[in-house]
């Protein structure tokens, strides 16, 4: 029962994240959604590790957290860059490139 619950929680968080990515109009909001998705992974990994008694999952989680941070940094940098050039951070305005 236990693992199932964690997995479900993770799935819900993942879906919320994905939903956020798809619906937030602000790029920062989208970034937050992605963070949620990544965090759901952490829940999964830790839960699996806990129930199988294997530490690898925990280690994996640490790596994921680090990388998430790096990604957030790059993401925010790009958002700032975008704001400087285009004076907007609204995702819908990013449609110069299409077709």
């Amino acid at each position: 029962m236990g693992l199932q619950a964690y997995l479900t929680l993770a799935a819900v968080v993942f879906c919320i994240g994905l939903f956020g990515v798809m619906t937030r109009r602000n790029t920062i909001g989208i970034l937050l959604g992605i963070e949620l998705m990544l965090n759901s992974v952490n829940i999964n990994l830790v839960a699996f590790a806990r129930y199988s008694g294997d530490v690898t999952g925990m280690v994996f989680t640490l790596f994921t957290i680090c990388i998430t941070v790096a990604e957030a940094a790059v993401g925010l940098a790009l958002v700032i860059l975008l704001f400087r050039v285009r004076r907007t951070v609204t995702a819908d305005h990013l449609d110069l490139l299409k077709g």
Partner: protein
Amino acid sequence: MMAGDGTLALAALLLHATAFLVLAIAAPLRRLGRPAAYVSILCAAGSLAAAVLSWRAHTGEAISRLVWTWLPSEGQTLATVGVLADADSTVMLTLVALVALLVQVYSLGYLSDERAPSLGRYYAYQSLFAFSMMGLVLAPNFVQLFICWELVGLCSYLLIGFWYERPAAARAALKAFWITKTGDVGLLIGIVLIWRHTGTFDLTEMRVLAGNGAIPLAGLSVMTFCIYLGAVGKSAQFPLHIWLPDAMEGPTPVSALIHAATMVTAGVYLLHRTDWLFALTPDVLAIVVWVGAFTALLSAVLACVQNDIKRVLAYSTISQLSYMMAAIGAGFSGAGFLHLLTHGVFKALLFLGAGAIIHAVHSNDLPDMGRLARRMPQTAIVFTVGALSLAGLPLFAGFLSKEEILGAVLAGGFAAPFAMLVLVAFLTAFYMFRVVFLAFFAAPPAGHAGAAAASGAPHVADASHHASHGAAAHEPHEPPSSMLLPLWVLALLSVATGVFFTVVHPEPEFESPAWLMPVGVGSAVAGILLAWATYQRRAIDAASLAAAFGPIYRGALARFWIDAVFERAYRLALLGFSRLVGWIDRYLVDGVLNVLSAWTVQAGDDLRTMQTGRVQDYVYGIAVGLLVLLLWVQFN
């Protein structure tokens, strides 16, 4: 001992081929004109000599056959070429060689004003024609026969359209080719069918098979009918006779050679050559008789209303060819063949005589002529000889052969066709002597000064051609000796043949009743008398005579609308249908292709709208992809 008749016949054939090749390849020589003509005439003379020798060398029923493989198949021989010299082919060969030579000589004078390159071209065509015609005559099998059959058709096309700058000539050439080609479709099918039926193309082998009764009769009628179709086209039988009058757009010597003496008789010759085959299918032969008799009558009627001297002769040719056909259909092809030979001589004479008149008056139209006998007595004499021969009076060439045909048709048991043919005999004499009287003896009608140099619209072939040089000296005169000589030769031959046959009456293949000859001669004489009364004495008014036959007269003036029907069929059915197919191809078949490609391009354009440029839609895409993948995992 001299060479065999086959070799001689081959020599006759190849001499013309040589002349053609020399003229075709040696373009500078051809462009010189007269020298080219001399080469051709020289070869023609040699050819005549060889042909005569071959004819004389031939004895009895012997058959001399020389063949070479032409088409191999599966390592065997499929078709051969060569010569088949027998009694009929050698005598026909002689006729062809003779008329060809005479016409070539005659043309020297007749076409003396032609530009040199053009003259060279003319003689090249003439040589090619003579070669092809001889090849046809000597053909040992159906393949060579068909080859030469088509080649003479080609020469006919080329020579009718010789003055191709004139629209009428160009049109007539096409018409002739297409109409005869229609018949040739039948002939070709017939040949293919009979090959499959008997396993051979070879006439000799096939004849042996036929003699042994080894040819199955089932379906044979279709085959012989198809072969007969070829003859219908070539020998101008109804309804494919319409090309021959138009073919008169060619130079008159051409008409004499191709459209009177030789090529048009190829159909008759073909049926005569294969009479043993047709004998197996009496139903087809009956068709031959009926069509022949009908065509003879039809064209004789048409001949009566023509004003163009060459057209009169053209319709008379059709009529005479139909005579021969009728005899063959009646089962006595010998009679038809005999008429073919005599007709060849006197019809060539008539055409060449007509050419002399046209040469003199620069018009083809009878009203432009009149009292020409005074100015050109020699022409008048020979032309009258020809007319008498055609009318079939005793002591002239056509007499015996015509009697034989009438007898043959009667003996074959075809009473109605016989009656029609007798009527034709009457009409023949009438229209021929209408020409003779109008041209040579009667006074020209008011308003026509005798010669047509001043006539407003010279619309007919030779006339307009000669008008260019005739304007200065419009006084009619005797033609030069190069033209007179052939005329006299032919006239003498006509008489000689006539006398010969009157004296040495050959044994007919059938019994004719005693009243036959009087009826035949009588109808001819009646015709002559009627013509004399109408056109010379003017005792009977021509207009009221025409009025007496109201509908027929009007129909004849419109050629019984047959040409119009063909014209419509060509324009509306063929061209119209082709335009429909062309439209379908362009806008439907190709249209579908264009639609497919346009759709492809459109699909690309439509798919582009998927690429909105909004990043969240891209994530959407990924999400949907993911969802589909998950569903697949779920349900797999």
